[in-house]
């Protein structure tokens, strides 16, 4: 290791700001600078979390929401990936399909909610549909662009060295597009939670969004804030998992070389 490392390279440094914010928040509420009816203290939020998890409610809602998120992500992700793959490799499909997808992409998918409720009611399929739709486009675009931007010179080298179409695809085209695909996945994970929050707030009888709306009716501020914190944690967690994948799959990349 290099001598004289900067103090801010310490692993704990990124956590200073969140911790200070929470302490400040606690003090503001404790000394009545902000009233509890507007904002509960962090301790109250933690208490609410403990109470809800003792009854098992919390786990159930988180479980249901995560399940919806992942099913929607899997469906939308697979569709987006396959479309990106097909359009990126076969010119015929690119010419016939891409423009249409690009047009649909520009519609904010949450604007479809009234239509989705009429089509699917407020059951599970409506929420999963919205998540899938939101997730599909970032993955499509990044897969498509990733494949289009694979170094032509490497492909030429591959054909000079006698690689078959399949080998060319698995050895050069797909791994070449992977960094871009992973960016798409990370972005899609963010869209996944946003879509789910909105979908669950509109009509649900379980899940984190439901917890938040029912808490609002009873003015349970602690639970409302708890649901917001839950989304933050789940979002961070999924990003962390995506990052982990990035490090594993892109360990050849100069940006990830062990120093």
């Amino acid at each position, binding site marked *: 290791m290099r001598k004289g490392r900067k103090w801010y390279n310490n692993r704990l440094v990124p956590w200073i700001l969140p911790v200070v914010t929470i302490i400040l928040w606690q003090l503001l509420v404790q000394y009545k600078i902000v009233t509890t009816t507007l904002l509960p203290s962090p301790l109250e939020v933690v208490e609410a979390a403990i109470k809800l998890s003792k009854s098992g409610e919390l786990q159930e809602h988180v479980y249901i929401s995560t399940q919806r998120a992942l099913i929607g992500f899997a469906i939308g992700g697979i569709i987006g990936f396959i479309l990106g793959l097909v359009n990126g490799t076969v010119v015929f499909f690119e010419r016939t399909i891409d423009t249409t997808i690009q047009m649909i992409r520009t519609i904010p998918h949450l604007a479809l909610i009234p239509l989705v409720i009429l089509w699917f009611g407020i059951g599970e399929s409506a929420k999963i549909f919205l998540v899938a739709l939101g997730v599909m486009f970032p993955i499509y675009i990044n897969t498509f662009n990733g494949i289009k931007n694979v170094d032509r*010179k*490497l492909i*030429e*080298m*591959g054909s*000079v*060295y*006698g*690689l078959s179409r399949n080998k060319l695809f698995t*050895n*050069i085209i797909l*791994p*070449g597009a*992977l960094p871009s695909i992973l960016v798409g996945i990370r972005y899609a994970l963010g869209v996944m939670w946003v879509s789910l929050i909105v979908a669950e707030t509109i009509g649900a009888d379980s899940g984190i969004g439901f917890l938040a709306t029912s808490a609002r009716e009873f003015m349970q501020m602690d639970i409302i804030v708890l649901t917001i914190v839950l989304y933050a944690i789940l979002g961070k967690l999924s990003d962390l998992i995506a990052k982990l994948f990035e490090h594993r799959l*892109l360990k*050849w*990349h*100069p940006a990830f*070389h062990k120093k």
Partner: protein
Amino acid sequence: MFNIELKDVSKSYGDNEVLHDINLSIEPGSFTAIVGRSGCGKSTLLRVIAQLEEISKGTLSFSSNSGSKPKIRIMFQDDRLIPWKSIIKNIELGAINNEVAEQSLQKVGLIDKKTDWPDQLSGGQKQRIALARALASNPDILLFDEPLGALDALTRIEMQNLIEGLWQQQEFTSLLVTHDVTEAVRLADRVIVIDKGTIQLDEKIDLPRPRERDEKFTYYEQKILNQILGG
């Protein structure tokens, strides 16, 4: 062993004729250099032989007594190593088997870099890996498209010695495109000067190997240089 035969070969991009009625016969196992200014068509000629470009007119044929198709490989100006494959995996990509891949890596003297990523190597080392990859496929014809152009002077000399040694060992037909006349005289049995898409000079280099920069060497060098500059 394959004879490379070009008959009245022309190549145009739109109205722009890059090669004009090229007639050329290259003997199996020989080392030929093609020199000329930038844009004279020398790289296009190489790409035509590699069948990366369609011929507009004329014929290209490879005759042999076995009647099979030759295995042609190219060493490009850039290394074109696959960044997400380790050094040994890059070589195995073109290799006839993994054992030969390892032997080739040994031959270019970089066996200790076996598990490194290409990005961890210097430019000269990467070109040596590219050479190992080409050799591991046991080519009949190896085309060099200015592979040493981007290297520093000392690394170039090392690479020239390496290429000469390996060519003498494996006896593939070599075709080197370069703008460096000294490099051409240093390596080739025969130097062809191309200008404006036609062959201007076809000179046999009759010097013993390994070659020294003596009077005869300078004579060839000067003759070829005069042709390029005067032509």
